[in-house]
């Protein structure tokens, strides 16, 4: 497989702020002077409550929203528009319902005006890897929610992105599907070893998946805790969830939210 040689991209964020102008004069400081370096090939999860600026951070990294001050660099290139090395998975699958599964996966290739025929085999291969072999000619409406999100992940991976941005990708899925997707994401990432920035409000999935968890809190959006997760890989669902260290990490993150009044201790 060609993807095994895929190298993750390095991310360098410095003094990054985002202010949203509102119609009244009270501007919202969504991100406040964030400094962040992400190692190539690492899996970083950002966890925080709604409104903590984690989605803003992703939107800035994806080049969809301009920064107010500060800078972002992906492999040394300043980000002002969507970077070609970046792939994004959104909370909803955002599949185009009038296109087949295969044509949805090939959409980025079409947009980049690359040779679609050359990527067809790659798309089929990706589908097979997420357990959807032979689903290429189906339409999204014929698929379940979990299957659709798998297709969305394939679409983000077709361009072999050095940086995969995931914005609460499993937030809309039921618990069982979510568990399966978490396991599949881990195996996929262990194969590809690209850089992943995984936005979530689930402390458990952040600790389970990531090498490093950034804990954010709102108003202004800041990183309160930068936690290195030292658990052996591949992580297994039951074993890891019973791990003493795993619970230690979860407790540390909860403590932050309790201290900030985001979670009430009980």
């Amino acid at each position: 497989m060609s993807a095994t040689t895929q190298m993750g991209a390095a991310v360098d964020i410095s003094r990054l702020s985002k202010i949203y102008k509102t119609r009244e004069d009270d501007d919202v400081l969504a991100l406040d002077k964030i400094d962040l370096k992400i190692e190539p090939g690492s899996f970083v999860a950002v966890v925080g409550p709604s409104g903590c600026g984690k989605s803003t951070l992703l939107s800035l990294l994806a080049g969809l929203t301009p920064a107010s001050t500060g800078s972002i660099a992906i492999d040394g290139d300043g980000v002002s528009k969507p970077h070609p090395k970046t792939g994004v998975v959104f909370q909803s699958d955002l599949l185009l319902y009038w296109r087949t599964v295969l044509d949805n996966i090939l959409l980025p290739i079409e947009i980049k005006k690359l040779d679609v025929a050359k990527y067809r085999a790659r798309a089929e291969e990706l589908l097979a890897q997420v357990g959807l072999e032979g689903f290429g000619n189906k339409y999204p409406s014929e698929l379940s929610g979990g299957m659709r999100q798998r297709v969305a992940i394939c679409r983000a991976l077709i361009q072999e992105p050095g940086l995969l941005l995931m914005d609460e990708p499993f937030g809309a899925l039921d618990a069982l599907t979510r568990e399966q997707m978490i396991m599949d994401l881990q195996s996929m990432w262990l194969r590809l070893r690209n850089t992943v920035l995984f936005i979530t409000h689930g402390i458990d999935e952040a600790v389970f998946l990531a090498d490093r968890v950034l804990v954010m809190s709102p108003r202004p959006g800041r990183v309160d805790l930068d936690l290195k997760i030292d658990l052996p890989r591949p992580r297994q669902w039951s074993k890891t969830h019973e791990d003493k260290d795993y619970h230690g990490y979860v407790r540390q993150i909860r403590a932050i939210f309790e201290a900030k009044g985001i979670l009430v201790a009980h």
Partner: protein
Amino acid sequence: MASTDVIGAAQAQKKQGKGMSSKKKSRGPWLERYSALILAVVLLGAWQVLVPWSGLSEFVLPTPLAIAKRIVNELPLLASHAYVTLFEVVAGFAMAVLVGMPLALAIFYSRAFERAIYPILVALQTVPKVALAPLLVLYLGYGWAPKITLAFLISFFPIVISTVVGLQSLDKNLVNLVRSMGASEWQTFFKVRLPAALPNIFGGFKVAVSLAVIGAVIGEYVAAERGLGYLQLQANSLFDTTLNFATVVTISGLGVMLYFIIDTIEARFTYKRDAAK
């Protein structure tokens, strides 16, 4: 282990997928399938039976069979007039598409233009188009022009509105998605905005084409030497009620035909979101 989990889930999902597709093929019982046809036959049958029973003469209300017979007998006459009306409808509708779609795009892309043009459009729409017919004859004469213009005026508004609404109702996240892939606005339009708006646009086309038929026929009522509206007036003045009905059937047949042509084009260019349900 993760890998066996994947296989298990995939098999489960494949089964689920099959379940869904078999549901798609299954249809209701035959009564449900042919309900429209059955009702139509029952109503026409009642009409056929009740007319002679009530003693109404054919001059007042002809039976469906008499009308059908007349249509067959007068086919060349009806066709020669239908051809004229069809041309007026298609020309007026085509003009409405050619003017309405670019206008809708301008409204969608320019807030200022939207603000400027919308009140005028709505004001124009509230003018009863029928009331314009005599004026159009005055300005454009007795030929094609006033009928085409009326068909155009009456079918133009739904095309503009449905196109604007279709473009505006797009999920903004879809735009972000393709932008994150590096799409230009041009690509965003053709890959996402237009395909997503097509069901709305075709809905507008269907309404518009039915209205265009009305526009053309009204134009012919006011002043014409050919066309189905003209033929109907002729039948009226000759107290030929059966021919009058035959013309009405032909007019609605024209509308139905155009509707289904658009429906067929739509089916070729769009995939219905809930086709699998």
